[in-house]
């Protein structure tokens, strides 16, 4: 998969030949006149803000004429989006950026993404959505491939009026970002936490474990060598049995648990979720930094990155 920056000419081609209003998802299309739009026109950041479009045609005209480096729409709906005033409600959004995953199995350099870590980001998005729908009973959950990761965007009325604090608690819940008082229950947060812990622990290497306060190399090596045994304990909620690993005293166990929990929280950028006025990359637009289409993903399991490759990049590769 080739990822490179798009040239101004390629941006123009994309918006004139390939961009289609049908690719703008319904949840934006139906609320287009009450959203704020933001643009990065030259690659220096989204500093063209406070834009309002009454119709998708107006938006299309703007995109075709300006061919922006990046295009964004607010998660919030406003009475006066062009002034960012009269806040009505906002989508609940989770941003899973493959380049920022706290642990990943690939070895692509800091700030980069590869197909492997993008796939890991996709799995994280799926896990989050399962909890949002199952435990939290939310509906209208949409996935968006953002170019370097995935957005989970929830347009369920019951959560759209929530403020930042409540949203932060949703982040804690879906990420497993808080140590629970019980690890054993079959359902609820206890189960979510076990699953997140299992996922995070399974990705760790010896060097990662050495970041745990009080962790000795010999113990870290043992935990990784016998990872399957440790994972089985986590899966069953028998975390106390981890103390069977020689050298893992109560203090180091606690430090390990805190370390893993902190890593769990890092699988999404909490700042995005709590910000009820955030602008997020517009599905249908071009992520010019990587030359990929930002698009709604209808079936996350079957989604292929190939679908997001713009025509100009495909032609260049031929």
């Amino acid at each position: 998969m080739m990822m490179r920056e798009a040239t101004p000419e390629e941006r123009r081609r994309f918006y004139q030949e390939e961009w289609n209003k049908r690719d703008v998802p319904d949840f934006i299309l139906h609320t287009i006149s009450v959203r704020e739009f933001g643009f990065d026109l030259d690659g220096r950041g989204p500093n063209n803000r406070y834009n309002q479009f009454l119709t998708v045609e107006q938006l299309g005209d703007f995109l075709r004429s300006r061919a922006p480096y990046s295009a964004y729409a607010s998660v919030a709906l406003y009475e006066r989006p062009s002034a960012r005033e009269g806040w009505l409600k906002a989508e609940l959004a989770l941003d899973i950026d493959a380049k920022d995953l706290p642990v990943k199995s690939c070895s692509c350099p800091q700030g980069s993404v590869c197909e492997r870590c993008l796939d890991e980001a996709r799995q994280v998005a799926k896990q989050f959505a399962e909890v949002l729908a199952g435990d939290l009973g939310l509906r209208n959950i949409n996935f968006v491939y953002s170019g370097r990761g995935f957005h989970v965007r929830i347009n369920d009325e019951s959560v759209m009026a929530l403020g930042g604090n409540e949203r932060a608690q949703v982040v804690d819940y879906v990420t497993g970002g808080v140590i629970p008082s019980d690890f054993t229950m079959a359902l609820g947060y206890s189960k979510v936490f076990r699953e997140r812990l299992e996922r995070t622990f399974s990705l760790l290497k010896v060097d990662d474990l050495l970041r745990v306060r009080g962790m000795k190399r010999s113990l870290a090596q043992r935990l990784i060598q016998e990872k399957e045994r440790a994972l089985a304990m986590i899966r069953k909620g028998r975390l106390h049995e981890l103390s069977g690993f020689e050298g893992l005293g109560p203090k180091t166990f606690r430090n390990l648990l805190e370390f893993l929990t902190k890593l769990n929280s890092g699988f999404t950028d909490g700042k995005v979720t709590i910000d009820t006025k955030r602008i997020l990359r517009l599905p249908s637009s071009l992520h010019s930094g990587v030359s990929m289409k930002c698009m709604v993903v209808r079936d996350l399991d079957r989604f292929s990155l190939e679908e997001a490759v713009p025509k100009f990049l495909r032609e260049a590769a031929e």
Partner: protein
Amino acid sequence: MLGLDLIAPEYLAVLDPFADEAKRIVETSPPLESLPPEIIERAVQRVKWTTKEMLVEPNLNSIRAEVLSFYLMCQGVASVSFPGSPEVRLISEATRKTLRYRMYDLFKKGQIDLCLSAVKRSLNLVDLEIGETIKVAGFTIPREDFYRLRDLRLAEDGLETVDDRILPQYLPRYAVRWTDLAPLLKHRLKELTKLYLVGGWAVITPRDLWDLYASFISVKLEEYVQSVYERILESGTQPAGVLAQVGERISSLVPREVVIRGGFTRGQAGRLRPEFFPPCMKLALNGVGAGLRNYAIMMMLTPFLSYARVAPSGKVATRMADFIDDISIVRDEIAPLLFEAAERCNPPLFKDQPQEKAGIFYHMGFGMTTEPTLADSGRSKWYRTPNCSKIQMSAPSLCRPDELCRQIKNPLTYYFRKKYEGSRAG
């Protein structure tokens, strides 16, 4: 408590002072200023109630005294303090305890339906279907989880065994929509991760129900005080007379001392002394322009004030809870200074970036929240005060060095040295 059934609709005002029944009582009463002395006294005494005084006889006079004293208490506090003040916290907590006790008492007396009718006005509440299987809104709850929830609730109250009369209070019996609990989540009076959630429903015990409902009313109280406070501000006149007297008397009952964990060997933390702040921090406190706001408030002032207040000699630690036992140091001493400085920025920082309120606590290590608790301490990194060279580079306009600045490398050193010299000079 005879006659409760007959008086049930009015009695709802005792369980919900914001219900229509309560509002009608207020509307048909003389102004709060001219209430009889016993109601005025009741308004003050409310914060001291422990058990039986919290209960209200089922007659119209008692209900009326209860409702009017409640409003007098709220308006009195709004006239002498501000939203979020220690006075507001005191009456909010007292009201929460009162409501909880009343719910407990009514359940004990078999008046469960009365309680539930009050609750259902604010929360979507359903009964668990408890039979061969345990279900809520079509979702099955494993029996092991059902009993585990009971055991956890017992453990929270420090109980290993209870007699059969008390046990039902600890058995899951109801479920509420978690989204209805948003006001409690907002103020961290409830944590989502501590709820047992299935299909959007939080499974709760009767005791949980009393807690949730009582907290719900206490949040409404705080919002009400805020609205009264804003009305007073708009009117431009400061209330005097009975309202101010009630407010002052309640204010005098607020425990003042903030407890700081003992045992500091270097013991130089303590109350902030702005007169000893270095020039850069004084400038930042006065508010800065758009380009510097985030850096000045988040990266400079937040670590500086937090370390200066709680860490002896700015000693570095990973968690603030290693130094303090009382979160009010953060909420009532450090945060107000930061919020005021943010407000003085041009434009005010939180006007267009309200999420940065949570950012302030994030930088103090409490994670993303605006209602930090000690338990949150360590959830994010507690940022350290940048060195002078870094400030000089990132915010040159705030660096106006004086004599002492030339001898130190970090603003905290400046502060502690000045403070030490100040204490020696008496």
